[in-house]
C-alpha cells in the first residue's frame, strides 16, 4: 500500500493515462495473436473483431512450423543468444571489477572509453565489422553472429556500477581468506551482483533474439538465421500475403521472451534500480 493515496479525480486521471498508454503498447501484440488464429478470409474483413468466427489457429501454427524452418531459426536464436550472454559475462565481469575496485594508472581513461562506446550505436560499426569478419573469414558462421557482441560496454558499465556498491571490506576479507582476484570476481562479486546479472541477461537476450540488422549483413545461410531474419525471409519467399501463418510464427518467436521476462521481472527491476536507491 502506498504511503499517500490520491484524491479520486486525480487517481482516475492517472489510471486513465496509464491504461491508454498500456493499451497502445499492448494492441499490436493482441492484434498479432488475434490474426494468428484467424482464417485468411477473416483477416482482411472490414469489420473489427478480436476473436475469430472460425478458429483457424491450429492450421496457421502448423503451417508456420512446417512451411518454414522455424524450429531451426529458434534453435539458432537460442545458441547465439546463450553464447553471446555467456561470453559477455565472462568478459564484462572481470573488466567491471577492475574498473570498480582495482587501482591502476589509466583506469579513468579506460572507463571514459567504455562510456564513449556506450554512446555509439552498434550500427555505426557494422561496416568495419563486416570487413573485419570478411578478413578473418568468419562471415556466414555462428561466430559472425556472436563475436561482435562479446564485449558489451553496457554490461561493463552496469556491472561496474553494481560492484561499486559492494563494500571494499568484503574484497579485503576475501583476499585474506586466500581468494585470487579472479576468484573474487566469480565467487564473491558475481553472486552478490546477481540481480544486475539477471537484468543484463534479459537485456542482452531480448536485444539479440530480436536483432535483425547485423544478422542480415553477417549470414546468408538459412540454417544459421536467427528468428527475426528467418521470419523476414519466410514472408518474402514463401508466405507471400499469407498473414495468418506469419503472425503465428511471430507469436512463437516472441513467446519465449515474454515468458522469460515475466519470470525474471522481480530481479530485472531490482537490478536496474538497486545501485541507485541503496
Amino acid at each position, binding site marked *: 500500500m502506498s504511503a499517500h493515496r490520491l484524491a479520486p479525480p486525480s487517481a482516475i486521471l492517472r489510471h486513465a493515462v496509464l491504461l491508454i498508454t498500456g493499451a497502445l503498447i499492448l494492441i499490436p501484440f493482441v492484434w498479432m495473436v488475434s490474426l494468428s488464429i484467424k482464417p485468411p478470409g477473416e483477416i482482411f474483413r472490414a469489420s473489427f473483431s478480436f476473436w475469430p468466427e472460425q478458429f483457424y489457429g491450429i492450421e496457421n501454427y502448423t503451417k508456420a512450423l512446417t512451411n518454414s524452418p522455424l524450429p531451426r531459426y529458434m534453435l539458432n536464436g537460442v545458441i547465439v543468444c546463450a553464447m553471446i550472454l555467456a561470453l559477455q559475462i565472462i568478459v564484462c565481469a572481470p573488466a567491471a571489477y577492475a574498473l570498480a575496485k582495482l587501482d591502476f594508472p589509466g583506469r579513468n581513461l579506460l572507463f571514459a572509453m567504455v562510456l564513449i562506446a556506450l554512446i555509439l550505436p552498434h550500427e555505426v560499426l557494422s561496416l568495419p565489422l563486416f570487413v573485419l569478419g570478411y578478413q578473418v573469414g568468419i562471415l556466414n558462421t555462428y561466430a559472425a553472429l556472436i563475436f561482435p557482441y562479446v564485449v558489451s560496454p553496457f554490461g561493463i558499465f552496469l556491472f561496474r556500477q553494481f560492484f561499486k556498491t559492494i*563494500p571494499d*571490506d*568484503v574484497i*579485503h*576479507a*576475501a*583476499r*585474506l*581468506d*586466500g*581468494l585470487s582476484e579472479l*576468484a573474487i570476481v566469480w565467487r*564473491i562479486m558475481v*553472486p*552478490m551482483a*546477481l540481480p544486475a546479472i539477471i537484468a543484463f541477461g534479459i537485456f542482452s537476450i531480448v536485444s539479440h533474439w530480436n536483432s535483425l540488422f547485423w544478422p542480415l549483413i553477417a549470414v546468408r545461410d538459412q540454417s544459421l538465421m536467427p528468428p527475426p531474419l528467418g521470419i523476414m525471409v519466410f514472408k518474402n519467399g514463401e508466405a507471400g500475403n499469407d498473414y495468418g501463418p506469419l503472425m503465428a510464427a511471430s507469436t512463437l518467436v516472441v513467446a519465449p521472451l515474454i515468458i522469460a521476462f515475466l519470470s525474471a521481472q522481480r530481479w530485472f527491476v531490482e537490478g536496474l534500480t538497486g545501485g541507485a536507491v541503496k
Partner: protein
Amino acid sequence: MAAITIEKIEKSFGATPVLRDVSLDIADGEFVTLLGPSGCGKSTLLRILAGLEVQTGGSIAIGERVVDGVRPKRRDVAMVFQSYALYPHMTVQENMAVPLRMRRLSSIQRLPLIGRFLPGTKAVGAEIEKDVMRTAKALGIGHLLGRKPGQLSGGQRQRVAVGRAMVRQPAVFLMDEPLSNLDAKLRVQMRAEIKELHDRLGVTFVYVTHDQSEAMTMSDRVAVMLDGELLQVASPREIYADPDDRRVAEFIGSPKINMLEARVRDNGLAEIAGTSFAIPGDITPGISLALGIRPEAFHLVEAGGDNILTGAVRMIEHMGSDLYVHLAVPGTEHPVIARLLAERAPQIASGQTLHLGVKPERLLLFAADGHRLRPHDHASATVLRMKERVQ
C-alpha cells in the same frame, strides 16, 4: 605464534601523509590496541599489517619473517572487519569454510560440479565441515550454520565474522573496530568474549578502536595514535595515570582531564587563576605550563587557600555512583570538572561556591609543546636539552 615488528612505517595517500614514522614491537601472544580518533591512521596501519595496503616506507615483520610485499593470504593473519564483511550469498557454514577451502583444496578440487568428484575432495570437505562445526560451537553459533548473514542479528554476524577468522587458526588476529556496530549492552558482552578468546587462543591480537573503554579493558598494551603518529605505547594503567603527552592525557579519560594554564613563579610554585600551586619537580621560573588534573584527583575542602581551586558550581551530573561537578573557576577558560562521591550530592547545589583541593603528586605537568614534564626531571632545561638532542 608470532611477534610483530613494525619498523618506521610511513604511508601517504598522494601528498597527504597518513602515517609518520610508526614503530612498534608487539610480543607473541600480546593483546595490543591501536587507539585514536577517527582519521588518525590506525586502520591504515592495520591494513598495512594485513597486506591490504602497501606502505610508502618502512618494514613489517611477522614472526621473524619480513612480510613487505607478501600477499595477504600468505601472511598467516586473519582480520575481523567493522562491517563484518560476510559474504551475503553464502550460509554461515559456507562463509566459515571459505578460508579452509582456499587453503586445503587445490584449485581443481574447488571447481564447481567437477571438483567434488575428484579424489580426496570428499575427505578434506568432511574435515573442513568438522572444523567449522567445532569453531561454531565454541562461539555459540552452531545452530546458525544453515542461515545466511541477512537472517542474523548484529551480534550473531559479529560472531560469524570472528569464527571465519578463527577457523583457520592464524598466528595473528587483526580486528578493525569489530564492536562499533553493536548496541552498548552487546558491546560490553562481546568485549569480555573477545578478551576471553584471546586468553584461550594465546595468539597475538592487534585491535583497532576509537573507544577508550574497549582499549582500557581488553588490552595488555595500548598504543595511542594521533594524526598518524604513535604518541605512547604502554599498559592501560600507565596510559591513564602517566601519559607522556598532553594529547594522550586529553584523549584518555572521561570526563576529560582538566587542563589549567599556569605560569611558574618561584621554584616549586605555579600560579593558576590567582592561586598558588605547589608543583613537583624543579622547574625554571617564568615558563608556561599546563597542569593536568584528573576529575577524581580533586577532594572537597572547607576553605580556599594555596593548592586549592575555588569556584561556583555551574552544573551537577549524577552518574549513579559518582557525581560530576562542573565548577566555573575565575581565570580559567573551561569549567573545571570534579568527580566526587555520590554521597556528597545533598551538600552541593548549583551556584554554590566550592573549594577543591588536589595533592601535588596527582598533578600532571605538560610543557608548552605538550611534552610531559616529570617530577624527577631535574629542570625544564634538562628536558629541553634532551629534546634538542632527539631532534
